[in-house]
Every structure is written in structure tokens, then in C-alpha cells.
């Protein structure tokens, strides 16, 4: 009976080890989420795990994959924000005019 228990315990340890080795860090759901929706979509509580996964993925030959993940993230943010949408350009123009008016006034206005 004792032998059976030991066998079971050791086999479970062995299987766990095999399972861990088999898991590819590059195909982890967190990495896939970052690829699909961007790095900012990764929840803050998982950020350390995500960094560890990226490192492991790079070590396992996924260097290009991680590089692409970052590149895609930069491009996604850049494409989304490089042009002002809707009313935002009017707002920006109001700020710019008030800013210019104030500082030009500071330089050129004379006190009575």
C-alpha cells in the first residue's frame, strides 16, 4: 500500500515537471492578449507575470515575436493618436490661441 502511495506521488511530480516544460511561454494567453489588444490591455496585477513570460519567450527563440509585439503596440498607439478626432482640434486651437495671447501679452503689453 505504502509503495503504491509513493509511486503515485512520484508520478504526479514527474507529470507536473513534464507539463511545465511543455508549456510554451510565447503562446500564453497573456502574450496573446498583448498581441491582440496591446500591452496596456494586460491587467496591472499580471504585469510581473507578463514581463517574466516575455523574457522566457525571448529565451525560447521568440525574440522576433516579442519585438513585433512591442512594434505593433507602438504602431497601434501612434495610428490611433496621430490625427485629432472630432472637436478635439477645435479645443487644441482654443488652448493654443489663449496660450499665445497670454505669453505675447506678457512680452509686449505695457503697464499703464
Amino acid at each position, binding site marked *: 500500500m505504502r509503495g503504491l502511495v509513493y509511486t503515485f506521488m512520484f508520478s504526479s511530480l514527474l507529470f507536473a515537471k513534464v507539463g511545465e516544460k511543455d508549456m510554451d511561454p510565447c503562446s500564453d494567453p497573456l502574450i496573446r492578449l498583448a498581441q491582440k*489588444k*496591446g*500591452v*496596456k*490591455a494586460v*491587467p*496591472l496585477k499580471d504585469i510581473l507575470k507578463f514581463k517574466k513570460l516575455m523574457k522566457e519567450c525571448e529565451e525560447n527563440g521568440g525574440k522576433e515575436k516579442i519585438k513585433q509585439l*512591442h512594434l505593433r*503596440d*507602438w*504602431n497601434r*498607439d*501612434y495610428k*490611433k*493618436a*496621430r*490625427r*485629432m*478626432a*472630432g472637436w*478635439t*482640434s477645435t*479645443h*487644441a486651437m*482654443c*488652448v*493654443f490661441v*489663449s*496660450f499665445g495671447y*497670454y*505669453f505675447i501679452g*506678457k512680452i509686449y503689453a505695457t503697464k499703464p
Partner: protein
Amino acid sequence: MKSQIYVFILSLLLFAWDRAYSQPKISVDMGFGFYEPTLSGFDDNLSIQFPTKGFLNRNLLLNWGISYEFFNNARIGYNSLLSYEIGNNLEIVNSNAVFRRSIRYRMFPIETYFRWKPRIELNFTLTPIWGRGRIEMDTTPGDKTEDWNDLINSFGGDQDPITDMGATDVMISDWIGYGSKLGVRYYVNSRLAIDVKGGFMNNFYNNDNWRIQRQKVTGPKMKITDLPVFSLKIVYGIK
């Protein structure tokens, strides 16, 4: 008419779908602000010797804020700029008082932006300001020791054990104002950025609008309107 209703419902659904899938971007920021007010009520005061003015208690502002991207290229949020001063042993008639003074500019900015380069963002901020001045002082009021000794004596034990006591009272003033800023943000990575802003603020401060214990009093003269203001902060995107 019926088809128009369907189109309306369909467009609402599409809008909701888009909202559900877009990333809400919440970010927090911390840093410093710099400005140059003229606090003549403190600096030119001949009756009381307030702490000597310096860079830390006049020009430096502690800055923190939180913002939410509610529209493409637009954020809304809360930003607090705090000027603080503390002085020990301020000599007044009956006490050597501890004095604390704070001026807090609470801003509710609407900020629009665009990315000039993948890592560089230019931003434009308009903000209403709710300002609050606060003067707090620990003093030694006359009858307080006797009153407390009376109470403590009634419980028994040593007679008149209290020899010295203090009390803290606060005078407060609120005002409104507005500000405008232009800024540049450099993204170190997709979450972390350094933000530099410059602009101005106008505050409608009136030194007759202070209050202490619900009584209206006159406060210090301060020129805090028509001021250039600059800020440097670190921004971190939470989501």
C-alpha cells in the same frame, strides 16, 4: 418610420459595441509644478515674522493627478497642485505657535492630444480651477488649561495635572479660476511617460473671503492671478 427606428437602434448597437471593445485608458501622474506668486500678506508683514520665503515654500508645487481617456485624443481628469509652508515658534501675543499654510489648486482639466512621433505626444489643456487657501495655527488659549483641569480633577487623582495646552484652528478661503497649458509627453514605454507642461493660470482670489469658525475674516494679500505655471511629471498608464 419603422426602418428609421431600426437604423437608429442598429447605430446605437454599433456605438455600444465599439465602446465595449475600445480600451479605457486610466493613468496616474506625479511630479512637480513651478510658479512665482507674490504672497505680500506674509512676506511684507511687519507684525508677525513668518517663515522666510524660499524656493520650496513659494515656487515649488507638489503635483499629482489622475486622468481618463473618454474620447479619441481627449482626456478628462483631476489634478492637484499644492504649495505648502510650515513654521515653528511663530511669535504671536500669547503663544509660540506652529503655523502651516497651504495653497491648493485643484484642476479639472480637459486635455486633447496627438502623437507627433510614435514616442512624442503634444497635448493641449484647458482647466477650471477650484483653489483653496488654508492657514492653520496651534496656539495656547487662556482658559483652556483651567477648564481641562476642572474636568480631570472631577475624576480624582492629582490636582491640576495640566500646565500647558494647545488648540488648532484653521482659516480657509475658496476661489475659482481657470488655466491653459501646452505640453509635450515622451513615452519611455507604452505605459510610462514623462510629461512637461507650460501655461498660465488666473485665479479670482479675494483676501476678504476667508472664514474661520463660520466667521468672515480678512486674509493675507496674495497675487496668484495672471501667473505662468510649469509642470514636470511622470505618467503611468494603469489600464
